[in-house]
């Protein structure tokens, strides 16, 4: 237990009492790190705790390590902050948890509550920052460890790591880059908290640079073919979590009255003068479709609930509708 009045001596390593809200493999990685460092896991709060029959890497690891496992929903229950105080929690960590943590709980741990946000705060606060960054054509991105305050993603920044977004990156691969860069930052936070908590950076966010995104899907989820190919492809990349579910679904268009969602598309660099939305030739399993400035190669589409090669359902000479959401 840490000395509650003076904190640990510099260079000595305290055994922290940590409450971890976590989901997915990223949460399991952080749990493993905490256990390897010999800290006390007060509890692991994860959605799998309340559903013993459903798979949960965090719950399974917690059970193997002998850590208490609490349902994630408890964080919203009245009086939960008292439970946190009673448990003498030093640090609350949130790694991919699905729940907003109430203000009273945030203040119930001695050294504070920290979140791993997959975006370059103060920009890209809120929901789906990876998808928004891809949609907006960003070429760099970042993961941020910040102290949680009642306003979402607005607390002081402890650590941030940036990385490039490559042309071939999708929402899936950028999300993974966030985890790969973010877990070492959480480790650094825990190590600093254990040796000299006063040294944890707390850089106030520049409110003038803050951008916040909510639940809305851009363009109402519609592909707009009369836009530059870059924009069309970026929207598909922003939704590409294949083989996992995309929070935005996939951008849709209509061909001959039928809805077709574009799942994978790449730029060709070949200029075109055809009407936007025109389906041209077949290239392997893909088809070329005209945008405002160049052809894009549409590889995979979702139609009638099936993920198929585009050439299976789109034929040369067909035309994506460019009205009712298709026009800018």
């Amino acid at each position, binding site marked *: 237990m840490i000395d509650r009045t003076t904190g640990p001596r510099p260079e000595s390593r305290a055994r922290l009492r940590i409450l971890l809200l976590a989901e997915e*493999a990223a949460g399991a990685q952080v749990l493993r790190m905490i256990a390897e460092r010999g800290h006390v896991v007060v509890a692991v709060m994860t959605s799998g705790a309340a559903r013993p029959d459903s*798979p949960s890497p965090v719950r399974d690891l917690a059970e193997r390590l002998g850590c208490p496992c609490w349902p994630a929903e408890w964080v919203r229950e009245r009086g939960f902050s008292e439970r946190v105080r009673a448990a003498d929690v030093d640090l609350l960590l949130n790694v991919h948890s699905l729940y907003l943590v109430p203000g009273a709980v945030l203040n119930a741990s001695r050294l504070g509550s920290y979140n791993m946000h997959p975006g370059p705060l103060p920009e890209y606060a809120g929901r789906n920052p990876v998808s928004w960054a891809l949609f907006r054509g960003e070429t760099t991105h970042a993961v941020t460890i910040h102290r949680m305050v009642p306003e979402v993603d607005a607390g002081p920044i402890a650590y941030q790591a940036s990385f490039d977004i490559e042309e071939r990156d999708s929402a899936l*691969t950028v999300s993974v880059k966030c*985890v790969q860069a973010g877990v070492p930052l959480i480790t650094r936070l825990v190590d600093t908290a254990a040796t000299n908590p006063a040294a944890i950076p707390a850089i106030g966010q520049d409110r003038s640079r803050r951008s916040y995104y909510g639940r809305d899907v851009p363009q109402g989820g519609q592909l707009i073919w009369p836009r530059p190919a870059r924009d069309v492809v970026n929207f598909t990349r922003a939704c590409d979590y294949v083989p996992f579910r995309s929070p935005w679904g996939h951008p849709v268009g209509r061909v001959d009255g039928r809805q077709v969602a574009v799942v994978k598309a*790449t730029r060709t660099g070949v200029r075109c003068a055809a009407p936007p939305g025109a389906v041209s030739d077949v290239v392997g399993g893909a088809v070329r479709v005209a945008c405002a400035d160049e052809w894009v190669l549409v590889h*995979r589409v979702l139609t009638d609930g*099936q993920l198929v*090669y585009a050439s*299976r359902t789109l034929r040369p000479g067909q035309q994506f509708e460019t009205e009712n959401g298709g026009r800018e």
Partner: protein
Amino acid sequence: MITQELAGLRNQIAALFADVLKIEVPSHDTNLLATGLLDSLGFVELLLQLERRFGIHVEMESLEPEDFRSIESIAAFIEAGPGSQLPRSPSET
């Protein structure tokens, strides 16, 4: 009926899940995606390991989710070898 090679391949993949990805898969036909056993981080690590251990390079543009549904389907995908990612005929897709 499966060959001895395919059975061995399935066991190697199961060991990869247990030892490297730290994911305990109940059986070779467990649906890894629908059950949530495999998430985005685990999936990308799986692709890296398949490339490293089996020389399988998966093009993201032609990635077929069905190939990664279970240990059985991953083994079948690896056994099909190079060319298995070529577009399938409409009747197969």
